[in-house]
């Protein structure tokens, strides 16, 4: 009896989830492209694109319907002959760098690349001063 009640409760809780899933996923959300080279290019690209609904996952990792629709976009565009960079540009033109997980050096991100380098140089200089003198 308690089990049946718990099951019923679980069904009620799951209803909103079901509501989003009544539509079948986009044709190429879960279906791979027939051409293995194209599918590999699509897969590599999808792993570096951010899911906008579930922001710490890539669209390759996410089961959100919107991520499925983005995978559909990626696969159909690759199949139509677009390059992965063209597709990434198409998305960044709409959502900004935020949508891409691929690191790029730009006016706002250059310190991320420069600071570690500076720190290594600084550490090297300190070490040289400490231990270089002893010779």
């Amino acid at each position: 009896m308690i089990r049946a009640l718990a099951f019923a409760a679980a069904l009620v809780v799951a209803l909103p989830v079901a509501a989003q899933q009544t539509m079948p996923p986009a044709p190429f959300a879960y279906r791979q492209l027939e051409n293995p080279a194209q599918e590999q290019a699509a897969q590599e690209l999808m792993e570096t694109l951010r899911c906008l609904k579930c922001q710490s996952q890539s669209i390759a990792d996410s089961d959100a319907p919107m991520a499925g629709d983005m995978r559909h976009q990626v696969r159909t565009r690759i199949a139509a002959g677009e390059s992965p960079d063209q597709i990434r540009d198409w998305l960044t033109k709409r959502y900004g760098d935020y949508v891409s997980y691929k690191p790029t050096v730009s006016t706002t991100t250059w310190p991320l690349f420069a600071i570690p380098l500076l720190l290594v140089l600084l550490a090297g200089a300190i070490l040289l001063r400490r231990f270089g003198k002893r010779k």
Partner: protein
Amino acid sequence: MNWRLWIPLFAFAAFLGLAAYQLTQPKDEFVESRMVGESLPYFELPPAMAGVNGIGSTDFADGEPRLLNIWASWCLPCIAEAPHLENLKRQGADIVGVAIRDRPEDVARFLAQHGNPYSRIGRDDLSEVQLAIGSSGVPETFVIDGQGVIRYQHIGDVRASDVPVLLAELEKAR
């Protein structure tokens, strides 16, 4: 004692302070569209249910500014914003709907329950228009001017306080 010994400790404390400050700041999860200021990309959508008109990007370039509302019958905040869209319509706004991943019978049931503020409703099963205009969720509302250029983006459900803002943006886009 050498005062310079304290520098690393102060640097570390400053870093902790910065981290603590950032942790108390609310997280901004809104992804703003970069398409504001750009023309609507070309698209055509079939009607979302029987008895309504579908939409195409060419419907927007007739001199009249419009609201483009991204919504869905399965989206709960869309229920909350329905009365405010109705209010916008009463005050003269032309609202065009794009139903995301929705079935005609669900669209019809939603509109029967919560009212229909839309002059046209397109059916976007693959989120194609949503992705093309840089929208990252449901609901979102865009102001499109009479030349078909995206002028303003409102992310999230439209609340009572957003109604005058959207009306002003429509007026600006005239």
